[in-house]
Structures are given as structure tokens and as C-alpha cells.
């Protein structure tokens, strides 16, 4: 585990060097900045809560997509091109490659989202609004956690297969399942549990917990607790009256697990792959 800085550095250079990479990074940052520009035109005395309310729908798609797109070619791209065996003939271990790529791409994600959100918050603060520092830090941290979670999942996916096409299919399938379909599945779960006589009229708390353990729903829960707490009363099961495991704090830890477990799992899988 000494070669990861080299891997990370080369990875960052490759991402920033390509025109598509630059355009994608600029686009994500610009979306967050322009959100900060637009909110004060319609709201008087805007705060981070207004910013969150305006941009959450976009962020829920954009940040997972950005994380996955940053991650999904990380290992399989080199493997398909035959560079991976070459890299491994240097004194780099497989752990160097997985963690180096995670750190390099994570840094790109970190800088992009941080710059975007800080720019947006600056445009909220000046000249009309007021940005509370704790809300800003919570919002930034939650969005970063969401991005890192999908980056980790993407990198884990890229260790699974040797074909680029399959990696692409996996990635977009996962994006569709997690971000598009999963949050809409409440009704199906309710029906299924009612059929099993485990629920009546609404989902029991443990089922909400299981259903909500998906990163983008955890992200919503974190934001509803720390950035937009006035929304807490609207969601029946997510209210502050709900049990402790449906609050924001445990959701943060679960998001952390979504970062750690896929990374470790991806590495363990990759370690015993025959290249």
C-alpha cells in the first residue's frame, strides 16, 4: 500500500485532461451555482432551506449519476484496455489500484461538489439572504456523502466484470433501480406485506427503515433532519415523533456504510479475480 498516491494522481490527471471529463465536472458545479442564483429571484430572504427545497429534485438525480459515472469505468476501463496487467507489473498492489482510484476520483467529486455548493451558498448569502453555517456544512456534508456512496458503488461494480459494455449496463441498471424505481416502490411493499399479514394500512417502522436504507432516500432523511427540519412533520413515518432509527443521525452512519462496504467488497472481489 504505497503506490496509491501515484494511481490517484494519474487518475485525476486523466479525468481533468479529457474534454468530456472537464465538461461534466463544470456542468455539475454550474448546476449547484445556478441554483443559488435562481432561488433569490423568487424568494425573499432566502436561506439554505430554500436552496435545498429548490435543488433537491435535481441533486437527487445529478449527484448519484455523477458519482456512478466517475466510478463505473475506474477499474474495468483499464482492464479492458489491457493496462491493468501492465500497472500491476509495477510494484503497485491491487489494493493500491482500488483505493487509489477511489481517492483520486473521490477528490474530483469532493472539489466539484464543494465548489458548486459554496458558490451557490455565496449567491444565496449575498446580497439578499442569510446562510447559517451549520446548515451549509450539513448540506454540503450530506451531498458529499451521497456522491461518495454512489462513487463507491460504481467502483465496486467496475471490479466485477471484464467487459466495458457489461459495466455500463450494470451501472445504468443500478442507477435506474436505486434512484428512479426504488423510491416509488412503497405501494408494492405495502401490498406485499399486507398479503403476508405483516402490515395494515401503512408500512410498519421496520419496513420503512429497510426501504429507506437506499442512499438517495437516506440523503433525503439527512436533509429533512438537518437542513430543512420544517418538512419533518409532513412525512408520516419520518417525523421527529418517529423512532430513533428513522432520524437523521443513523441515516448519516448508514450512508457511511454505503461508502465503506462497497469499497471493501469491491476490493475483496477484485483481489481474487483472475485477470
Amino acid at each position: 500500500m504505497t503506490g496509491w498516491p501515484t494511481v490517484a494522481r494519474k487518475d485525476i490527471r486523466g479525468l481533468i485532461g479529457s474534454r468530456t471529463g472537464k465538461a461534466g465536472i463544470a456542468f455539475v458545479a454550474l448546476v449547484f451555482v445556478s441554483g443559488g442564483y435562481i432561488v433569490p429571484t423568487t424568494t425573499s430572504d432566502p436561506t439554505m432551506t430554500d436552496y435545498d427545497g429548490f435543488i433537491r429534485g435535481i441533486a437527487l438525480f445529478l449527484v448519484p449519476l455523477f458519482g456512478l459515472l466517475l466510478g463505473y469505468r475506474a477499474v474495468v476501463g483499464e482492464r479492458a484496455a489491457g493496462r491493468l496487467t501492465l500497472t500491476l507489473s509495477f510494484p503497485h498492489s491491487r489494493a493500491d489500484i482500488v483505493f487509489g482510484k477511489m481517492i483520486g476520483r473521490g477528490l474530483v467529486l469532493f472539489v466539484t461538489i464543494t465548489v458548486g455548493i459554496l458558490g451557490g451558498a455565496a449567491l444565496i448569502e449575498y446580497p439578499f439572504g442569510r446562510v447559517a453555517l451549520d446548515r451549509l456544512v450539513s448540506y454540503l456534508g450530506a451531498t458529499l456523502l451521497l456522491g461518495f456512496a454512489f462513487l463507491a458503488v460504481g467502483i465496486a461494480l467496475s471490479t466485477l466484470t471484464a467487459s466495458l459494455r457489461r459495466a455500463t449496463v450494470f451501472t445504468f441498471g443500478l442507477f435506474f433501480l436505486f434512484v428512479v424505481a426504488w423510491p416509488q416502490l412503497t405501494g408494492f411493499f405495502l401490498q406485499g406485506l399486507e398479503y403476508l399479514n405483516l402490515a395494515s394500512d401503512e408500512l410498519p417502522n421496520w419496513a420503512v427503515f429497510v426501504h429507506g436504507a437506499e442512499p438517495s432516500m437516506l440523503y433525503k432523511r439527512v436533509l429533512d433532519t438537518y437542513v430543512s427540519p420544517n418538512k419533518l412533520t409532513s412525512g408520516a413515518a419520518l417525523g421527529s415523533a418517529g423512532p430513533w432509527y428513522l432520524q437523521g443521525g443513523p441515516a448519516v452512519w448508514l450512508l457511511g456504510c454505503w461508502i465503506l462496504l462497497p469499497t471493501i467488497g469491491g476490493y475483496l472481489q477484485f483481489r481474487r479475480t483472475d485477470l
Partner: protein
Amino acid sequence: MNWQAIARNDLRKAIHERGAWALFAGFFLGFGGLAALLVQLGDPEFEGYIDLLAPGVGLLVPLAGIILGYEAIIGERESGTAVLSLSMPHSRAGLIVGKLVGRTTLLATVIAAAAFLASVILLYFFPSFSASRFVGFIAISIVYGTTFLWIAAGLSMTLSTSRRVIAAAFGAYIGLTLFWTVLIDLTETVLFRFRPTSGEPETWVTLASFIGPNTSFNYVLAEVLDAGTVPAAVVDSSANFVTPAVALLALVGWAILPVLGGFLSFRQDDL
């Protein structure tokens, strides 16, 4: 840092070029022509002369600075002389310092010589001629021209083809002399989401407008030498940073920062 040889060589070449002489002739015609015009109109006043000269100098001296500065490094680079010079015991910093000293001396000499010749006319025809005010005026003009010369030289170090350098240098000239205040006001309007603003302008707007080189130059002239008019952006500002010292500092900053940035990028450029 063997820059003296480079500066001397640069000056020696410039003396044999038509451009430097044309510039000298242009400035002399400008300074002297305006004086002759006022004499023709009768009852020449030095006050009126210097008031009329200030806006003209504010637009033409930067142009001279840009013209003298833009080729400083890129010309050497494109003709291959830079590689040759650097194969001798000159460092890149030495090359830059030598070029800057040479070109700045040239600009100062051209303006000062033209002004000196013009002052003979002034001395003869203008009874209210004040040598100290005129010298001060010319000195500030030289500083102002040097600012633009160094901006152009900084661009000349950073960019890799002379066409880009020319475009960027003239863009900087137009943006900094004509449109600086407009750009600042536009930024303010966009930031305030196109709502009308009233009352005193924001402090940063005043500061940003004030440190624009053209505003600073005109402010120093009006405040110290009573020449020309105080720029509209700061004319009734009560902000405590609106002083001649800050204005001069802004001019120096506009000169040094581009050169510093240019040096940092030129230092590691592959020639």
C-alpha cells in the same frame, strides 16, 4: 540574473526600429499639437491644456504600453531568439527582467522626450506654465503606461502564439480603459438579480471601480495635480480607501501581478 545585457540589447534594437520613432513622433504631435491648437484659439491657459490632455493621455499612453509590451517575450519565442538567449548564461527570470527594463526605459524615454520638446512650446506661449505640475503629470503618465506595458508583457509570457497575445492584450486594453466601470456595474446588476438598486453603491463596487487602472490614473491626476476630472465612480464617495496612495498602489498591483503570473507560467513552459 544577467539582465543588463538583455536590456541593453533590447534598447539598442529598438532605437534602430521605425516603431519607436513613430511612437515618439506621435506623442510629440499629441503634446505639441494640442498646445499649438490652444495657442491658435488665443489666450492659452495651462490649466485648460492639462485638463484637455488628461483624458487623451488616459487612452493613448496605455495603447503605447500595449504596443511596446506585447512582443516582449512571444516575439523572442516565435523567432527562436529566446532559446538562443537562454543557451547563454541567462536565466528565464533574467530574460524577463531584462526585457521589462528595456521596454519600460524605452516607453519612459519616448514619453519624456516628447514631453520635454513640447514643454519648450509651452514655456514660450503659456504664461501660466507650471513645470512641477507638468513633470508630475508626465511621471504619472509613465507609471500608467508602464502598467499596461507590464500587463501586455505578462500576457506575452503566458500565451503561446503572438496572435493570442495580441487579441488578449487589446482585449485587456479595451476592457480596462473603456469598459471597466461598466463591467463592474453589470456584475452588480446581475448579482442583485436585476432589481433596481438605490442610494450609495456597495463598498465593493466602489472599490472595484476605483482600482480599475483608468479610474485610478484619472483620480490621481485630478486629486494630486488638479488635472482633468475626478472619475464619476468615486466623485462623491465617502469611502476611506479613496486616496491617491491606494490608487497608485492599484496601478502598481496591475503591473506586478500579471508579470508575476506570467513568470510562473513561463518558468515551466516548454519553449
